[in-house]
């Protein structure tokens, strides 16, 4: 009995971690800044590739993962300054530009590094509960998703930068008039979003096949979680993760992966139809 309950919670934590980690970076870039970043998958891939490359070069895994995260963040800042900054008032153009970037990066990685990288093996061992054995590392993934949410909360709610960032997202002109350096805010916010995407890739790298197009595996889940969550990252993305993970876990367990995926996407359609502004829109309206 306990084994069954534990296994359901474990499966839920696993799906929740995947949704939150995929969505965290995009929630900032798309949710807060309104930039449709089609290169999100490639930032995830960047985090994964840097991590694996460094581990093959002899770095310990946690350090390599940190470097993967930071390198994705740095690349995010460069993308923002060089490409996205000119396109804030033009969402369709930013979509096109970032999609073009995504194509260039995936094909470039294919040409430079070949069609796949050798994997590094999942760390930590396994543990047993009843008749089931579980990989310990997947609990690390769950911990990582909670950490990502905590980091977003601390940065955007408890720091001076966070107040400036939220002010800039709300009304950039007034914020600038009050002395906020809007350009730096945009670059750093994009960088934080990119770093979170790299964090996702770095965490999942030991568990997956490493090919240049691996970002595509995360894209659908990240976009639907952000859209269901709505504009507010903290009030929206986390509840969206809980809701969608619950639907998917339940269907996966009872009906299999096909129904699980279809069911989750149907749930997204229903939620968006009923709550066009996502869950955070509902909470915002309620609190007025």
């Amino acid at each position, binding site marked *: 009995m306990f084994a069954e309950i534990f296994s359901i919670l474990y499966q839920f934590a696993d799906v929740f971690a995947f949704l939150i980690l995929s969505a965290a970076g995009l929630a900032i870039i798309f949710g807060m800044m309104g930039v449709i970043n089609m290169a999100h998958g490639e930032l995830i891939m960047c985090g994964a590739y840097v991590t694996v490359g460094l581990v093959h070069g002899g770095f310990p895994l946690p350090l390599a993962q940190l470097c993967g995260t930071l390198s994705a963040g740095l690349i995010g800042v460069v993308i923002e300054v060089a490409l996205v900054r000119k396109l804030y008032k033009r969402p369709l153009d930013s979509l096109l530009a970032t999609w073009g970037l995504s194509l260039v990066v995936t094909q470039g990685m294919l040409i430079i590094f*070949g069609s796949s990288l050798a994997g590094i093996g999942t760390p930590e061992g396994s543990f047993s509960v009843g008749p089931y*054995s579980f990989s310990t590392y997947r609990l690390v993934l769950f911990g990582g998703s909670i950490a990502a949410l905590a980091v977003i909360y601390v940065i955007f709610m408890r720091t001076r930068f966070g107040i400036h960032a939220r002010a800039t997202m709300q009304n950039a002109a007034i914020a600038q008039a009050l002395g906020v350096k809007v350009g730096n805010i945009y670059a750093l916010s994009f960088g934080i979003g990119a770093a979170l995407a790299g964090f996702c890739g770095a965490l999942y790298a030991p*568990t997956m096949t490493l090919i240049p197009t691996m970002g595509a595996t995360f894209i659908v889940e990240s976009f639907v979680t952000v859209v269901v969550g709505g504009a507010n990252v903290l009030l929206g993305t986390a509840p969206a993760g809980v809701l969608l993970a619950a639907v998917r*876990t339940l269907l996966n367990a009872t009906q299999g992966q*096909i129904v699980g995926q279809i069911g989750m996407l149907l749930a997204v359609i229903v939620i968006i139809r009923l709550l066009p502004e996502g869950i955070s829109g509902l909470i915002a309206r309620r609190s007025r």
Partner: protein
Amino acid sequence: MKQHCKLVRGLAAGVVLAAASMGAALAADPIKVGLLEDISGDLALIGKPKLNGSLLAVEEINKAGGILGRKIELIHLDPQGDNARYQEFARRLISKDKVDVLIGGITSASREAVRPIIDRTDIPYFYTNQYEGGVCDANMISNGAIPEQQFSTLIPYMVETFGKKVYVIAADYNFGQLSAEWNRTILKKLGGTVVGEEFIPLGVSQFAQTIQNIQKAKPDWILTINVGAAQDSFFEQAAAAKLNLPMGSSIKIMLGFEHKRFAPPALNRMHAAANWFEEIDTPEANDFKKRWHAKFPNETYINDMGYNAYTALYMYKQMVEAAKSTKLADLRKFIATGNACIEAPEGKICIDPKSQHTSHRMRLIAVDDKHQVKVIKDYGTIQPYWLGEIGCDLTKHNDKKQYSPTDLPKKKT
């Protein structure tokens, strides 16, 4: 009068000269081979060796004088794993480039997408992958391994060695569904049971629930016919959860070289039945490998698809030179004699007249915890007998259809 005669003789000479020069130009016309192989997109890592195999064969054949004195011109297009592009490029190669033969396609979905297009032409199409079998089509020549060569060897061995309870993980498209059907058919005859069967959508990469389901069902071994890089993540995740069950597959190791891509011991206890894998140790195989690595020193693994792409061109060469023509009807007349055979690096292989599929030298291989590959059993040459047995006879009628164990041809009264 005399001037008129001179004019006529001059014109006649001119016509003869023109005809002679045209004839000379035709003799030097290259044979155009259309190649549809993915070298970008999700299937790039198994498609690249296929292109390399074709390039190596073309270089060797052209150096030796070509086919009937004509050089091969290889026209390669990259459909990037997109079935709509497969169809667009097939049409382009056929009508714009006017190729003499079409080779390529990786997934069964892409093959079925182009087969109707080629059926409307009279050029041959070589499908060079192992697949779920059953295509009875006069335009198609298959030189990949098929279920009676892969499943009818692997499944009895696994049942005998490990037990009768099987859990199936399959990709959710025609290949996965039909291979699962084959598994059920063969298992029934052996008295085995399928204790669980999961069809996974392409692109899904998270398998925690699947691993738990397997542990609940307690099978003796797992049949892993999952496809694509995302679904391959199963092996790493199962190893991390210490699942450690024996596994069998028709498409792992020799096709996707997972034992080179994943850290040991993820592929421990994987078994497969293959006509080619890079670890074959015979003089012909080693010579072939040497030539390949000389031309492509950075090749991670010569997979069976790359090998089949290479042998397909030699099979085509043999047929065209024996039939002295590139027309499909003439080639098929030659195939019907049963002499369409070549000495390939795996051994002697022949095209079966009734089904236009190829016989293969099948070996059962197993991977250990250090990812070394060992040959467990040598089955010798296995003919592609199933289609002939159920009534497909391309020497008599062209069914243009794909059959399966539950979808057999109607008995002709």
